[in-house]
């Protein structure tokens, strides 16, 4: 368990590093939110207006003071006020968070289902040409830009079939189709990895033994080979989640859904530092938690790995 504690510490360091990195990256960027707020003004009083706004937002203080304030505030869960919306950044962020969480979660689920199903079907297919065709699918899937998949689905389901609304469909249908757009690339990458692992597993002695017991092909594949081949896939889910977070921005843009993705793009654009910091910190926390869960689950699936060893 001691090693797991160390992992936990690393996790905290990663989150802190992400927060700090984002803070200073945005700090070195020329121009700040005060510039954005006074963008419309002109004439001689711009400079004074700018200075007033900077003082109001606390942007005139030394960078270390600002950083310390931001960090200690973040530890209390207070990231400050969103510059444009004039209310807590955390509130702004978590308003659109459920929308994105639903999208990313359903997307991940669909990606796993698609990827695993495809790999199993590939292994069970006997016809050579059908098998070749199926094997060529995952590489195609990872080459598809998520925004293009989204546009194709939008064209078909909104404009041809009229199943969903083209702009921000609020129902489950809209959510499902948006997450399908997100799932294609993830499913392809899961299937690529899983197919390669399955091939390795199917030539192993233990699979030979299972076959000699007289188990059916499906049983050998799903109950024996798949269980072992799935381990690296589970490890890779941590990365997949990161990709999903990026993918949601594109999917939300294509389907005109208001989620974290759009919020962050606008916040970075307008230098709304508190909102950006919330977004970066939460993303890093999600990444760390997913990887910790993966690490914790690993020994349960593979008895050879243990945290005490």
């Amino acid at each position, binding site marked *: 368990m001691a090693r797991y504690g160390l992992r936990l510490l690393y996790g905290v360091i990663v989150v802190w*590093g992400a927060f700090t990195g984002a803070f200073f990256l945005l700090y070195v960027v020329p121009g700040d939110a005060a510039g954005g707020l006074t963008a419309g003004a002109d004439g001689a009083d711009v400079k004074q207006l700018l200075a007033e706004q900077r003082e109001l937002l606390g942007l005139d203080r030394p960078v270390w003071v600002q950083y310390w304030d931001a960090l200690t505030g973040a530890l209390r869960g207070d990231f400050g006020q969103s510059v444009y919306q004039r209310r807590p950044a955390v509130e702004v962020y978590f308003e659109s968070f459920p929308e994105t969480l639903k999208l990313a979660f359903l997307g991940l689920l669909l990606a796993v289902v698609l990827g695993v199903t495809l790999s199993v079907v590939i292994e069970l297919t006997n016809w050579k040409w059908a098998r070749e065709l199926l094997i060529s699918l995952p590489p195609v899937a990872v080459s598809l830009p998520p925004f293009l998949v989204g546009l194709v689905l939008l064209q078909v389901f909104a404009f041809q079939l009229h199943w969903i609304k083209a702009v921000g469909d609020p129902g489950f249908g809209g959510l499902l189709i948006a997450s399908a757009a997100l799932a294609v690339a993830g499913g392809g990458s899961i299937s690529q990895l899983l197919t390669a692992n399955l091939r390795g597993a199917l030539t192993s002695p233990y699979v030979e033994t299972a076959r000699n017991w007289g188990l059916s092909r499906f049983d050998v594949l799903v109950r024996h080979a798949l269980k072992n081949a799935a381990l690296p896939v589970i490890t890779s889910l941590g990365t997949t989640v990161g990709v999903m977070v990026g993918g949601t921005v*594109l999917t939300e843009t294509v389907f005109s859904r208001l989620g974290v993705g759009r919020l962050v793009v606008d916040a970075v654009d307008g230098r709304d530092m508190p909102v950006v910091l919330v977004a970066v910190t939460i993303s890093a926390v999600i990444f760390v938690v997913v990887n910790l869960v993966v690490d914790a689950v690993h020994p349960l699936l593979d008895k050879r790995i243990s945290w005490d060893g």
Partner: protein
Amino acid sequence: MTILEAKETGASAPPAGKPRLRARGGRAAGLLRSPGLLVAYLWIVVILLAAVHPGLFATGDPLRQDASQMLLAPSPDHLFGTDDFGRDQFTRTAWGTRLSLQAAIIAVAIGLVSGSLVGLVAGALRGRADSVLMRVVDIMLAVPSLIVSLAIISALGRGTLNIAVAIGINSTAGFARLMRSEVLKVSNAKYVEASVFAGHGYVRRLFKHVVPNASRSVLAAATMDIGTAILTVAALSFLGLGAPPPTPEWGLLVAEGRTFIGVQWWLSLLPGLVIVVTVLAVYRVGRSFNRGRTHVVA
């Protein structure tokens, strides 16, 4: 964006005897035996030609507007149709190749060089420097690359080359991790040990044996990364962070056509198809370089 390194499987490792001869005969014969790889190479040649000399494929001017030719469907005159300003979409796609490809290659070059340096330093020094550098790499991998890219682009300003810089900085972490693991692997190889016993110094050993051999894997991975970079450049341009309209650029073309996706779907989807085929070709060629290793491009 990320390159994960998986275990080398025993089955795909080259056999011990006559490795050189096998590799040579294998590559030429393999090209003939796999038509897919041949097509991929041909497509890449076409794309490179279009990038260097777009006039070969489309003689027209990508910016020329024509009010009498607005939103036409694809036809022999206008292979990809025309947009809402009457510009020929095929011409724009052909002329957009240069910017898109340039950005992808610059991005990979930045990531490759900076990542390899970090990985080499970490792998060569080991100890404390190694763990500090790898923690930094972990942190870089923990923040979604899109957010980092957004912040970098807002620092540098919009533009396709700035997108390339952002992607390059983002892919540094992946290359660093790969380079480090390769350096560690090569350092333990028999021929490096032999070099120790031959009395060669540390620096000579590093640059004569470790660096060239470790770079081979990293370069092979970089070919795959060009495909990923093309996708990311297109994605960021699609979000409006790249060159401003009316510059022809692949991602931007898809974004501009988006308004007409309901009826004139070809405006978005045909340039999109060019992106997909290009990425497929790059991945196919990349995979042939990466035989015997498993790199997962996520």
